[in-house]
């Protein structure tokens, strides 16, 4: 049985979440491996959300915020970028591939980009294989 990655997408309400909605309205096809979680802004992103998700066995996490300079709350996406960097460093130190986590920037009009991001992460994580933490975790249902 082929490996189907489970990817958590932490999406800003003002851009990526709307872009995901647009991708649906446009009837775009993208990998069904993603589970979208809406944040009021990526500035709400807590580093612990990402680490807990990995602890629970997700294979990858993508954080999607507004284009730089376009945050509804001025700098939430810039803060998320730094926090994502910190978690990547912690993952690397702990021994888990930091490539399993990535932040992307897009606007609410970029439904196509959202679909491409999801496909890109899905392909990347598929190549990396299942997270070593996955087998011990309970089946994730979102």
């Amino acid at each position: 049985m082929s490996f189907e990655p489970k990817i958590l997408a932490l999406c800003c309400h003002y851009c990526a979440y709307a872009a995901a909605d647009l991708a649906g309205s446009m009837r775009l096809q993208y990998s069904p491996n993603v589970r979208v979680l809406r944040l009021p802004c990526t500035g709400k992103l807590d580093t612990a959300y990402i680490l807990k998700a990995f602890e629970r066995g997700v294979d990858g996490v993508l954080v999607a915020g507004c284009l730089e300079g376009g945050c509804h709350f001025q700098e939430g996406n810039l803060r998320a970028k730094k926090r994502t960097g910190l978690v990547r460093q912690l993952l690397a130190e702990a021994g888990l591939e930091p490539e399993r986590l990535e932040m992307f920037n897009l606007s609410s009009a970029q439904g196509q980009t959202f679909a491409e991001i999801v496909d890109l992460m899905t392909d990347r994580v598929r190549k990396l294989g299942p997270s070593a933490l996955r087998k011990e975790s309970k089946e994730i249902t979102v």
Partner: protein
Amino acid sequence: MIVAHRKNIQELKAMLAPHKRILILGCGGCVTVCLAGGEREVGLLSSALRIAFRLDGEQHEIVEATIERQCENQFMEDILEEVEKADAVLSLACGAGVQAMAERYPNVAVYPGLDTKFIGILEEQGVWAEKCAACGKCVLGAYGTVCPVTRCSKALLSGPCGGSRDGRCEVSPDIECGWQLIYNRLKALGQLDKLLEPAPLADWSLGHEGGCRKVIREDQRIRTEP
């Protein structure tokens, strides 16, 4: 405040490997303010350690707690039960807090989770700078409130060395020359004449060079020496 920095996850993992139930204990004092060992950092480190152990197929139970201050006995009583249940404590306090924990709980293995760096201040968001070497005899008043012991890499009290270049220290261009700072400050205050006075010999025995120090205030003591 005392400024500290987290140790590498692999270093911590190696230290904690023999212990099965580990209490990761944060401190609500200085290390919370310098974002190294507060409640949030306890959570992050616990997650990262759980991941690191599980990747190696090792089973460890990691418990999290944070107390007001680890350098005072009275706050340690709050976690008595948790400490007694643990095989080891990873203390995210400064060196003083870690040792205070170990002295309070002599039968529990206590490990440091941080590298304690210095006494310093928040210079800008995310940047902490050393300001005091706790030398035991404060001379700030004579040097325009710029500490020659801390800010000068050679702790010179009688003027700069020959290694000062464009206001930078020869030890590293990232370090400002302490004596340039002293000169600038005294000039701005109109107190350059202070530099004409020869500095008295420093008594380094008042600092750590004189051995481990104690401050005893008899007026504050309850227990008296026999």
